């Protein structure tokens, strides 16, 4: 088990989750709408596409979707990095994009904003064809790269000013001033961007891609290497933007970020393994969880890890969450322990935290051509 899941144990992320009670219904409704609209329509302009799937496939652009792609494929040489990916991102949602390193997240994001040309598949971003209308997509999308990619040898203000000019913004000076003010960097505006710490660089990069008030934010592991405080601030900002109707597609490795997303998509080896509203993910995996507390958890944790049929033992503060997709076996293990009075066992609903750990620990780095991830 990695260190990551424990970061949820400080409880700070739980309020975030609690803030989303209305979400499941809303997203479920949106999802069913997606299904309906997509089945009804057949896009006339893709009739000539040779690899066009049958008409029953999800297909046409729906106004409720910020992004839809189908059969998206990208090859580098003979290596298929993204393999027939389907994805639908509803407008206004925070869409979490999970997957191990090398699973094709960055490549997918780059194809969506026109930085890479797909070898196959089709899709739309904000109603524009990702193959033919990259220019229009770029006007309305804010893309934040994984690695800091503003000019380190320009000052903070010069960087923002440059980006503002790239989008031909009116009232450029006022907008840059306001961005500096909001960033809290107004008094350091003539400092070189390269001298900023990781957290500040990330905030500057976000400010830079928000200058033109994009309708869609594509964030590629935006908080990698950033301290927890800066990460929380960053996510406060993301939620604020989402409330204003901005769609956010964010790739991440962090559980505390994943649980703040309305939707989750998990990819491995360039294939979409699971996707849906966050709350539905544990059920989609078929994960069941029991909560255990009591003395001497360390020994119990070690024992349970060696127990056949127990797929996951995660520690959350002073309790263990014991999970398995085999409900009967899990119940049996729980009852055995209760009979021996080892720990205090209660059945709980599997949450996104358990699902996240399940997905992330099941996967290995995807750079090798070895065995496929077990998460599927």
């Amino acid at each position, binding site marked *: 088990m990695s260190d990551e899941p424990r970061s949820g144990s400080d409880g700070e992320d739980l309020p975030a989750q609690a803030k989303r009670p209305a979400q499941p219904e809303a997203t479920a409704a949106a999802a069913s709408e997606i299904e309906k609209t997509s089945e009804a329509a057949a896009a006339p302009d893709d009739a000539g596409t040779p690899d066009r799937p049958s008409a029953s496939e999800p297909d046409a652009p729906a106004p409720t979707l910020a992004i839809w792609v189908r059969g998206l494929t990208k090859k580098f040489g003979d290596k298929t990095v993204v393999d027939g990916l389907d994805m639908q991102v509803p407008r206004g949602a925070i869409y979490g994009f999970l997957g191990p390193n090398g699973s094709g997240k960055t490549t997918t994001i*780059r194809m969506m*904003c*026109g*930085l*890479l*040309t797909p070898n196959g598949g089709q899709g739309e971003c904000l109603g524009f064809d990702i193959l033919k209308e*990259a*220019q229009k997509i*770029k*006007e309305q*999308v804010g*893309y934040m*790269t994984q*690695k*800091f*990619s*503003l*000019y*380190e040898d320009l000052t903070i203000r010069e960087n923002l000013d440059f*980006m503002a000019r*790239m*989008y031909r913004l009116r009232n450029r000076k006022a907008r840059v001033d306001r961005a500096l003010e909001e960033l809290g960097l107004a008094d350091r505006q003539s400092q070189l961007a390269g001298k900023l710490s990781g957290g500040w660089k990330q905030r500057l990069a976000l400010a*830079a891609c928000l200058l033109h008030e994009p309708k869609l934010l594509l964030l590629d592991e935006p908080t990698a290497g950033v301290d927890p405080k800066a990460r929380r601030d960053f996510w406060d900002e993301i939620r604020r933007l989402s409330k204003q109707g901005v769609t956010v597609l964010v790739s991440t490795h962090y559980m505390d970020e994943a649980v703040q997303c309305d939707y989750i998509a998990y990819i491995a080896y360039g294939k979409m393994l699971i996707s849906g509203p966050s709350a539905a993910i544990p059920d989609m995996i078929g994960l069941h969880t029991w909560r255990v507390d009591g003395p001497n958890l360390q020994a119990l944790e070690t024992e349970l890890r060696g127990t056949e049929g127990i797929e996951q033992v995660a520690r959350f503060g002073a309790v263990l969450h014991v999970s398995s997709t085999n409900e009967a076996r899990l119940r049996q293990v729980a009852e055995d322990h209760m009979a021996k009075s080892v720990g205090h066992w209660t059945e709980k609903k599997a949450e996104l935290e358990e699902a996240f750990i399940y997905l992330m620990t099941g996967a290995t780095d995807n750079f090798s051509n070895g065995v496929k991830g077990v998460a599927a």
Partner: protein
Amino acid sequence: MISISPARFFAVLIKEFIQMKRDRITFGMMIGLPIAQLLLFGYAINSDPRYLPTLVELNDNGPVVRSVLAGMETSTYFDFKGIVTGVEAGDRALRDGTANFIIVIPPDFEKDIVRGRHPDILLSADASDPTAVGGAVGAMNGIINSAIKQVLSGPLQASAGSAPPFSVTVHRQFNPEARSSTNIVPGLLAIILSMTMTLITAVAIVRESERGTMETLISTPVRPTEVMLGKILPYVLVGYVQIIVFLFFARVLFDVPFDGSVQAFVVGFNLFIIVNLALGFLISTLARNQMQAMQLSVFTILPSILLSGFMFPFAAMPGWAQTIGAAIPATHFLRIVRKIMLKGADLGDIAVDMTSLSLIMAVIAALALLRYRQTLD
């Protein structure tokens, strides 16, 4: 006592070979290029040029004239391209580079020999490149002497006495003192501009992708032309500064004249700068990092120095090498600069070179735009 661990030494050695193998472009340049250059330059360069284009102003004709011309042709130094009429036409041919020599046979040449008046044949040489014409001029005396021996038999035997019946006067035009600095310094402008302009542009653009800033740049709605123009123009200004500094030192330190049209010069160097920047742009689309960009730029410099006529006379190269040379931008700009500074040329005189430069420019720009991707593919 310092001890060297063979194991560690070998570890470094092996690592170095692995890295060498990974960087294919560098590896190719280390092995392939020297061979290519050896063959190319080894066969192409010849500092004793033959078959120099020569025109004749024929004001008289007869056995002696024919013998002299035949002797010149068999020496292989001179390649007769045709006849000119009038001094002006000859001067123009020398200035625009269609001929390196003009032979002027004076009127009544044959009669004057018979009468013992010792007429003069005038050999006008384009001495702006002293190396190119040096050999031919040096061979002239021998050619004349053998021509005299062949012809002056029979009725003319009498005039074959102690003094030769006629002589050749060599007139070195454009660079009467035959100073090599007069030739080299204007040529250097072509080399310096090629080197710096190409290199700076290539590196400036590759730096963008190497540091990752290209990703943010092309995620904005910016278009390739905007990037290309915006990145290139600052370096055009750098080029201007270089030219001004160059002209100043050429005059003050090397006493190189500037005889031609300033307007033609301005038009010429602007085109040349743009060609080099486009070349730099093309290189930037081929190189993956700044190091490779630098190596590729340096690679384009050697042919510019060796095959352009800068260091060795263009006319001395075999035909295939001249073809390669003609594809090098520096070759044409070199001619433009020499014509304007040394030969007092104007726009009309450099039209041919400007056309060639424009053609090269079109090809390079087309390749660069074709190679440039608006995506990260």
